[in-house]
C-alpha cells in the first residue's frame, strides 16, 4: 500500500515541479530577453511583473479548445500528450541526490535516449494532424533536425559511458565525487577520490571530455528546438511551426514540454559530465570543503543549481545568436559535430584501454 502511494506521489511531484519550473522559467526568459535587449520585460502584473506567467496560464486554461475542421481529430488531440509524456518519462531515471532517484535502473541512460526520441513522433503527429501547411513544414523540419542531432548526442553519451562503464545514472553520478565506489583520476593521472570537488567531475576525468560536453550541449540545444536551432517553430517564417493550430491547454502542454525538455537535457548534462549532485568544492588538506558540502539536501541543491545555471545559459544563447538556416543546421550536425563526436569516442576507447585499464 505504501509502495502504491509512493508510485503515485513521485510522478505527481515531478509534474508539479515541471509546472512550477515552467512558470518560473518563462518569466525568467522574458526578463532575460528584455535585459539583453535593453528593455524591462513584463512590469505591470504584480511587482516587477512577477505574476505575468500566472496570468498567462490562467488565460490559457480558460480558452476554448478549437480543432480545425479538416484536422485529423485523433492525432491532433493526442500529439501534445505524446510530446509531454515522452519528456515527462525522461525525468524518472535521473538522480536528484545520493541514492535519491525515482527509478534506479541499470539502463537509465538508454531509457532516456529511447523515450525522449518519441518526442519527434509527437511533433510529426501535431504537424500532420493540424492539416496546415505551416504546421507540416515545421514538423518536417523538426523531424529532420531531431533525427540528425540524435547522432551526435548518442555518440557523446557513448563517449561518457565508455569511461564510466555504466548506463546507470545513479552509478555515474556517484563516481564523480568523494562518495565514489571506484578509483577515479583527474585527467587519468592523479587519484582524486578523497579530494572530490570540481576536479573529480567526468568533464575533467579525461582531456577530451570538455570537447565532448560542448558537442553534447550544442546537440541537445538542437534536440529541444531552442534558438539558434529553432527552425521548427521559426516565428518569422512558419507562424508557430508545428503548434500553429493549437490553443488553450493543448498549447500550454507544448510549452510545458519545451521547458521540461530544457531542464531535462540540462540535468542529463549535469549528471553525465558536470558531477551530478556532487559539490564543486574540493577537500584541501584539513579544510574539508567537499565533506562539508555533501549530503542529501546539498545534493538536491547542487543538482538544481547546476541545472538552472545551464538553463540560464540556454536562454542567454537564445537571445544572442540568430537562427541557423536549414542547410547550415545540417552542415553543423553532419560535418562538424558528428566527426568531432566520433573522434572523441575513439579517444575515449583508447583512453579506457591505455590509461585507465
Amino acid at each position, binding site marked *: 500500500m505504501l509502495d502504491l502511494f509512493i508510485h503515485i506521489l513521485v510522478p505527481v511531484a515531478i509534474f508539479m515541479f515541471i509546472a512550477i519550473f515552467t512558470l518560473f522559467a518563462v518569466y525568467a526568459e522574458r526578463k532575460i530577453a528584455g535585459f*539583453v535587449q*535593453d528593455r524591462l520585460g513584463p512590469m505591470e502584473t504584480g511587482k516587477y511583473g512577477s505574476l505575468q506567467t500566472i496570468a498567462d496560464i490562467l488565460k490559457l486554461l480558460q480558452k476554448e479548445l478549437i480543432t480545425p475542421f479538416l484536422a485529423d481529430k485523433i492525432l491532433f488531440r493526442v500529439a501534445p500528450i505524446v510530446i509531454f509524456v515522452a519528456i515527462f518519462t525522461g525525468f524518472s531515471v535521473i538522480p536528484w541526490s545520493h541514492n535519491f532517484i525515482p527509478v534506479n535502473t541499470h539502463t537509465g541512460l538508454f531509457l532516456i535516449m529511447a523515450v525522449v526520441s518519441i518526442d519527434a513522433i509527437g511533433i510529426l503527429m501535431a504537424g500532420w494532424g493540424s492539416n496546415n501547411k505551416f504546421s507540416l513544414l515545421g514538423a518536417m523540419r523538426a523531424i529532420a533536425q531531431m533525427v540528425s542531432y540524435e547522432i551526435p548526442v548518442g555518440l557523446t553519451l557513448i563517449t561518457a559511458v565508455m569511461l564510466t562503464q555504466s548506463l546507470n545514472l545513479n552509478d555515474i553520478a556517484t563516481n564523480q565525487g568523494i562518495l565514489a565506489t571506484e578509483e577515479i583520476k583527474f585527467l587519468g593521472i592523479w587519484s582524486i577520490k578523497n579530494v572530490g570537488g570540481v576536479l573529480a567531475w567526468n568533464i575533467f576525468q579525461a582531456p577530451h571530455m570538455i570537447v565532448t560536453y*560542448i558537442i553534447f550541449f550544442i546537440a541537445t540545444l538542437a534536440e529541444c528546438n531552442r534558438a539558434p536551432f529553432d527552425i521548427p517553430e521559426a516565428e518569422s517564417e512558419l507562424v508557430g511551426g508545428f503548434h500553429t493550430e493549437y490553443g488553450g491547454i493543448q498549447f500550454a502542454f507544448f510549452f510545458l514540454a519545451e521547458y521540461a525538455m530544457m531542464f531535462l537535457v540540462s540535468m542529463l548534462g549535469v549528471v553525465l559530465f558536470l558531477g551530478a549532485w556532487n559539490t564543486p568544492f574540493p577537500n584541501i588538506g584539513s579544510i574539508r570543503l567537499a565533506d562539508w558540502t555533501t549530503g542529501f539536501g546539498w545534493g538536491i541543491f547542487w543538482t538544481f543549481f547546476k541545472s538552472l545555471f545551464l538553463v540560464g545559459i540556454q536562454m542567454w544563447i537564445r*537571445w*544572442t*545568436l540568430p537562427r541557423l538556416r536549414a542547410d547550415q543546421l545540417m552542415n553543423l550536425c553532419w560535418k*562538424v559535430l558528428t566527426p568531432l563526436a566520433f573522434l572523441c569516442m575513439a579517444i575515449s576507447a583508447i583512453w579506457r584501454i591505455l590509461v585507465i585499464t
Partner: protein
Amino acid sequence: MVFKIAFHALKTAFKGLSLTVKHLFGAQKARQELDITKDHYFDNQTGIATVQYPKVKMPIPEVARYQLDVEIDDCIVCDLCAKACPVDCIAIEAIKSPEVIGKTSDGSVKRLYPARFDIDMAKCMYCGLCTVVCPTECITMTDQYDRSSTKLTDLIYGFSDMTDDQVAQRKSEWTKFQAEKEAAKLK
C-alpha cells in the same frame, strides 16, 4: 578543416555572447537623459531604454505637431483648412450673416457663422497643412498627444460653440434677409 570551422564558430559565438551578457548586467540602471534638447544627451544612453509610458513621459518640444486645436473666436470660416486637408478630415458648415459679426484678434472681419466645425482626429495624418493655410492662425497643432478612447466617435472633435437653437435662428435670419433683398429687387 573541421577544427578550423568549429574554432571559428565558437570564437564568433563567444564574441556575440560576451556582448549580450554585457547588456544583461548593464540593465541594472536606466538611461540617464530622456530630453534630446539637453547637452550630453547621447553620452547618457547606456542601460534600459524603456520609458514606462503612462507613469513616465518623454519630454516633447514646445512646438510639437500633435492634436489639432481651433480657437473658434478667431475663425473666419473661410474653409481653406478643409480644402487643404489631404485626407478630408475637417468638415465645416457655414451660415452667412446679413451684417458683420465682429473682428478676430488680428483684425480680420468675420462674416460667417461656424454652424459646424468638426475635425476627425482618427483620420488626421498630422501633416500640418491646415495650420499653414489658415489666414488668421486660429487652427494650430498643440503638444497634446494622449487622447486614446474606447469609442471611435470620441475622436471627432467639434469646435463650433453654437447651439442648435442658435444655428436655426441664424439660418432663419439669413433666409429672411435674402427674402427681403429679393422683394426689394422686384420693386
